[in-house]
């Protein structure tokens, strides 16, 4: 069967994606509170995964320190809403601004490192920011602090109502991250990024501004990570250095999600997040072994099919489910 005749599968997948998005948009009205809480986590992880994929999959910035910006967003939300008494809803976009501002000096530091050393360098920076956050007395120092009840109440007085509101914020953040990054990828900039992904030297030779694109991508991800951190704080109701800056939750899991789903594609982070939540739902009772399975799986992916699960599927399909590359569209 020629690849082209499987185009109906692509259309079916696109219809499924739209139907899935519609169900997600209405989730608080459809599902129990416990499931809504799980879906809120799903949206936050999806947002972070899209951002890590943009950095590592396209811009060749393999960071192991992006959890720093999630933590900065969390602390900024607490600072605005609980300490400065800014409107809690307004505090969320302000958290994104703070993450962007922090990204500037961080970029100055880690962009001085050659790509191979950038990974651990970004980790050092993240560790430094986390330890510094633990010195802030107003934020409860090393042990952290809970959000005041008044702030929590502004998102709904009863628990189901509050979970619904926070879910919709998480959904809006994930949707914004997905659509905005998709539009970025379809622009001239995205064309340059795709060229960079496929052959960095070649892209540079034909006039792609490699440094400019790296700077743009790094600064692009920071506010979205800050938003994710704000949403996560609303859900967990407290900030603390080890939880808000958790490398396991916001970097280790995210790397597994993107690598297993398919790095350097738009479908990869979505597939990876779904697979990750399935593994977590069914395998979390086996404790440390689910980490070992995820680690072994991601090594196997790198060795066997570097483009992940989506790369395996894409071999059989004539087109992307989320069409983001103009060149590929033109070719077909």
């Amino acid at each position, binding site marked *: 069967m020629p690849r082209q005749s499987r185009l109906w599968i692509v259309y079916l997948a696109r219809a499924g994606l739209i139907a899935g998005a519609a169900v997600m948009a209405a989730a608080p009205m459809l599902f129990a509170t416990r499931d809504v809480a799980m879906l809120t986590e799903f949206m936050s992880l999806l947002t972070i995964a899209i951002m890590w994929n943009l950095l590592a999959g396209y811009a060749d910035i393999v960071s*192991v320190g992006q959890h720093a910006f999630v933590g900065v967003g969390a602390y900024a939300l607490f600072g605005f809403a609980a300490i400065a008494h800014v409107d809690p809803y307004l505090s969320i976009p302000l958290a994104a601004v703070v993450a962007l501002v922090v990204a500037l000096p961080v970029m*100055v*530091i880690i962009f001085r490192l050659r790509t*191979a*050393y950038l990974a651990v360098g970004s980790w050092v920076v993240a560790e430094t920011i986390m330890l510094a956050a633990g010195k802030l007395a107003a934020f409860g120092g090393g042990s952290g602090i809970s959000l005041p009840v008044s702030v929590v109440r502004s998102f709904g007085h009863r628990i189901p109502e509050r979970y619904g509101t926070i879910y919709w914020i998480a959904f809006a953040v994930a949707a914004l991250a997905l659509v905005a990054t998709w539009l970025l990828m379809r622009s001239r900039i995205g064309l340059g990024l795709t060229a960079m992904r496929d052959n960095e030297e070649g892209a540079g030779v034909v006039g792609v501004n490699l440094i400019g694109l790296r700077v743009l991508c790094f600064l692009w991800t920071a506010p979205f990570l800050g938003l994710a951190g704000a949403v996560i704080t609303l859900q967990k109701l407290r900030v603390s250095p080890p939880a808000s800056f958790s*490398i396991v939750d916001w970097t280790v899991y995210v790397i597994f999600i993107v690598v297993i789903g398919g790095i350097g594609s738009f479908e990869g982070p979505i597939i990876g997040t779904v697979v990750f939540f399935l593994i977590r739902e069914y395998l979390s009772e086996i404790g440390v*072994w689910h980490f*070992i399975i995820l680690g072994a799986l991601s*090594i196997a992916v*790198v060795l066997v099919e570097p483009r992940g699960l989506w790369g395996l599927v894409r071999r059989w399909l004539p087109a992307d489910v989320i069409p983001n590359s103009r060149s590929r569209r033109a070719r077909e």
Partner: protein
Amino acid sequence: MGELPNQIVQGVLVGGLYAMYAMGLSLSVGVMRFVNIAHGDLIVLISFLILTLIHATGMGALPATLIALPIAFAGGYLLQRFLLQRVLGKGVLPIILVTFGLSIIIQNGLLGVFGADTRRVSGGGIETATLKIGGGINVGVLPLVIFLGAIAMVMALDWLLYRTRLGARIRAVSDDPATANLVGLPSARVYATAMGIVGVTIAISAGFMSIWTNFDPTAGPSRLLIAFEAVVLGGLGSLWGTLVGGIIIGVAQALGAQIDVGWQLLAGHIAFLVIFLARPEGLFPKY
């Protein structure tokens, strides 16, 4: 008076241990041009191997470490030959992802087998012995031995890389793998041997670490970060520079701890970032 010089001396000695962590990383960065994210976890893994040997047979820490040396060499050799070699030269992403996955597997494997308890190995009295040198400064015998060990390790690796046939081969493969292959060097085996040597440095630092400090299955990443800082501060590829880098981190931590115990780790990282911003190429760059 007398407290500050004392703290600086202690910091310098701690720096010797940090330099030991960093030496293997420096070698793998210099030769294979990649940062092994699992480096710290490998140190902790060998520490648990030493602990297990001691518990199983009742032997001392020294013979247990000596037994760990060939095991670590073989482990490093096989790791490079059968895993890392397959992703070498394909850009930074695959090698980072593979060593990252390895790091998570080692940490959680150790957690599953040994539990989350903090461990320590008895050194048979050496850890409590001290020497009095003038001016109110007391020096622990163990830290002094470790510091001298770090200097010996620099000299041994320097000799190995620049005075022996094996070292010449390693440097040739490192400089240009394609040409090295062309003139008949088995580059895969040379890389594997280099990684075996990295394994030996890991086992030596694991032996000293397990006597001097507490460790648990999740202690690897903090060792990796310190080793990385020492390597970058010293200048990539410079072994003496790595020793100096380790000493700088050790002294910064000791001075930070003077302000407040909670500032110890933060002071080390801040010192690294400040010096790095001033001299991104490191203090004694070789390349």
